[in-house]
């Protein structure tokens, strides 16, 4: 059984804003500018799955340049010093932070998975029987970034969940 979720785009936007304020744009000079383009191309993505009372995924996707910039901000280093591993770790943590905050707004009885990172466009990912229910889409310093929520029907609940 899966319950209706009460996390809307304004909730997601607030979470994203907190991530930017805390880690990606502490000076408040380059926020994520929403463009509402849910089909904008991305080059890398990360996700966490939520299973239990609610089943679905929270996906963070961006261009490679935006991921590199995020890693530099997270690790307080120059953009050209950022390694592939730094990018992966940062993408995983971004999905984890947003996913954890989403989970906190869901009914009790849900589990959050460890993050999964794919250095390939979000368009290569498939979430069987899941549909995108909300998202924040925009650009960060001109580079595409999106955070989306996917709701899976109960039948696709992961084994053992």
């Amino acid at each position, binding site marked *: 059984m899966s319950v209706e979720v009460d996390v809307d785009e304004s909730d997601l936007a607030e979470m994203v804003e907190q991530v930017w304020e805390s880690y990606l744009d502490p000076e408040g000079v380059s926020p994520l500018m929403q463009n509402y383009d849910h089909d904008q191309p991305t080059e890398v993505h990360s996700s966490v799955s939520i299973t239990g009372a609610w089943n679905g995924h929270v996906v963070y996707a961006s261009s490679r340049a935006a991921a590199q910039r995020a890693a530099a901000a997270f690790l307080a280093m120059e953009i050209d010093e950022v390694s592939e591993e730094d990018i992966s770790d940062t993408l995983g943590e971004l999905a984890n932070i947003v996913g954890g905050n989403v989970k*906190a707004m869901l009914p009790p009885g849900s589990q959050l998975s460890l993050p999964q990172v794919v250095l390939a466009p979000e368009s290569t990912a498939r979430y069987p029987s899941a549909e995108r229910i909300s998202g924040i889409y925009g650009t960060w310093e001109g580079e595409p970034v999106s955070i989306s929520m996917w709701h899976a029907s109960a039948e696709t609940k992961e084994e053992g969940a």
Partner: protein
Amino acid sequence: MKILIADDSRVMRQIVVRTLRQAGFGDHDLVEAADGQEAFDKATEEHPDLVISDWNMPQMTGIDVLRRLRAAGNKVKFGFVTSECTPEMKSAAEEAGSAFFIVKPFTAERFDEVFAPILG
């Protein structure tokens, strides 16, 4: 004081370290663990004064690390820095003996508020 930082995310461990410094606690001896088992082992072997732990980690979750430490008689001051914060998690943490609960994303101000009474 010795502080053990347990998080499976390397970038988050670095952010915790940096935020501790920004909050004025950079002079303490910092030790890191990359999963729950390592956190339990280092909390036992390194005798930290404080453990700052993620909740969702491979090998063993943070709450299981805390419960196992307490079951073994280890009274180290222990708390959570996690992206997840539900009432059930908070009450489970308190029941297990957690001293604090910090939600990601966090700020240096939040670290100061929580750690000033603990670290002085």
